[in-house]
C-alpha cells in the first residue's frame, strides 16, 4: 500500500484522535502531518504481521502527542486522579459538555477512552499503542468511564427531566 493510500484510509482517524487529545485544530493537524511523515520515513520498519497500519500509525501519533504534552505541560501528572470541577457556563451544548468532561480526565485515562470509544480499538491494540498491558488499559478505561458517569450525571438528569 502506498503512502497516499494509507493517508486516504487513516488520516481522518489519526486527526480525530489527535484533536480529541489536544482539542486544538492546528496541533492536531501538526501531529497528523508529523505522523504520516514519520510513517513514510520508517515504512521499512513496519511489519504487517505484528500490527495493522492503523495501529502502527496510532502508536506514532501517541508518541508525538505525548512529546507535545511533556514539552507543554510537564507539571501535570499523567495518571492523576484529581478531577477538576466542571464549569457549566462553558458547556453551552451537549457536545461541549462531553468534550469538557473527557478533557478533564487524567491523560492516560482520557487516551484509553478515546482509543476505545471513538477509534474502536480493542484493549490489546490500545496496549500496543500506548505501551501498556491490556489489564492496565482495562483499568484505566473503567476508571475513565466511572468518572465520566459521575461527571455527566447532573447534565444527564437535567436532559431527562427536560424531555
Amino acid at each position: 500500500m502506498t503512502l497516499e493510500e494509507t493517508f486516504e484510509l487513516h488520516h481522518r482517524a489519526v486527526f480525530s484522535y489527535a484533536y480529541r487529545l489536544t482539542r486544538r485544530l492546528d496541533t492536531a493537524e501538526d501531529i497528523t502531518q508529523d505522523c504520516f511523515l514519520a510513517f513514510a520515513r520508517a515504512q521499512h520498519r513496519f511489519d504487517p504481521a505484528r500490527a495493522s497500519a492503523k495501529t502502527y500509525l496510532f502508536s506514532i501519533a501517541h508518541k508525538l502527542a505525548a512529546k507535545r504534552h511533556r514539552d507543554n505541560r510537564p507539571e501535570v501528572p499523567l495518571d492523576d486522579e484529581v478531577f477538576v470541577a466542571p464549569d457549566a457556563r462553558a458547556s453551552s451544548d451537549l457536545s461541549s459538555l462531553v468534550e469538557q468532561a473527557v478533557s478533564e480526565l487524567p491523560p492516560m485515562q482520557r487516551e484509553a477512552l478515546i482509543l476505545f470509544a471513538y477509534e474502536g480499538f480493542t484493549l490489546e491494540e490500545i496496549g500496543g499503542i500506548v505501551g501498556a498491558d491490556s489489564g492496565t488499559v482495562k483499568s484505566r478505561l473503567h476508571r475513565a468511564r466511572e468518572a465520566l458517569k459521575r461527571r455527566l450525571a447532573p447534565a444527564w438528569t437535567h436532559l431527562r427531566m427536560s424531555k
Partner: protein
Amino acid sequence: MDPFENEQISDSELDGLLSEWKIPPPSARLRSMVFAHGERPWWKWIWTGSIRIPVPVAIVLAIAVAFGVWKATYVERPSELRPVAELRLRIIRNQHARN
C-alpha cells in the same frame, strides 16, 4: 426517588453521550502539508531544511571546529633565542696552556 437526585448513567447511555462529541474535520491543507513536504526536491533541503542535534554533540562539534580554526591559523612566532637542534662544541685550547 428524590427528584433532585442525579440519575445513574448506564454503559449504553454513556456511549450515547460520548457520541455527542462532534469534532471539526481536518482542513484541506493537511494533504498538501504531508505530500508537498514529501515531494520537495532534495536539493531544496540544502536551503530550507533543518536538522536536530543533541546539545552535548553540538558543544563537542563547536569545540572541535574552534580548535581546528585555531590550529589552522596559528603561526609560530620567530624568536631570536631558539633551541639548538644539534649541539657542536668546539674546544679552543690556549697555546700557552700546559697539558
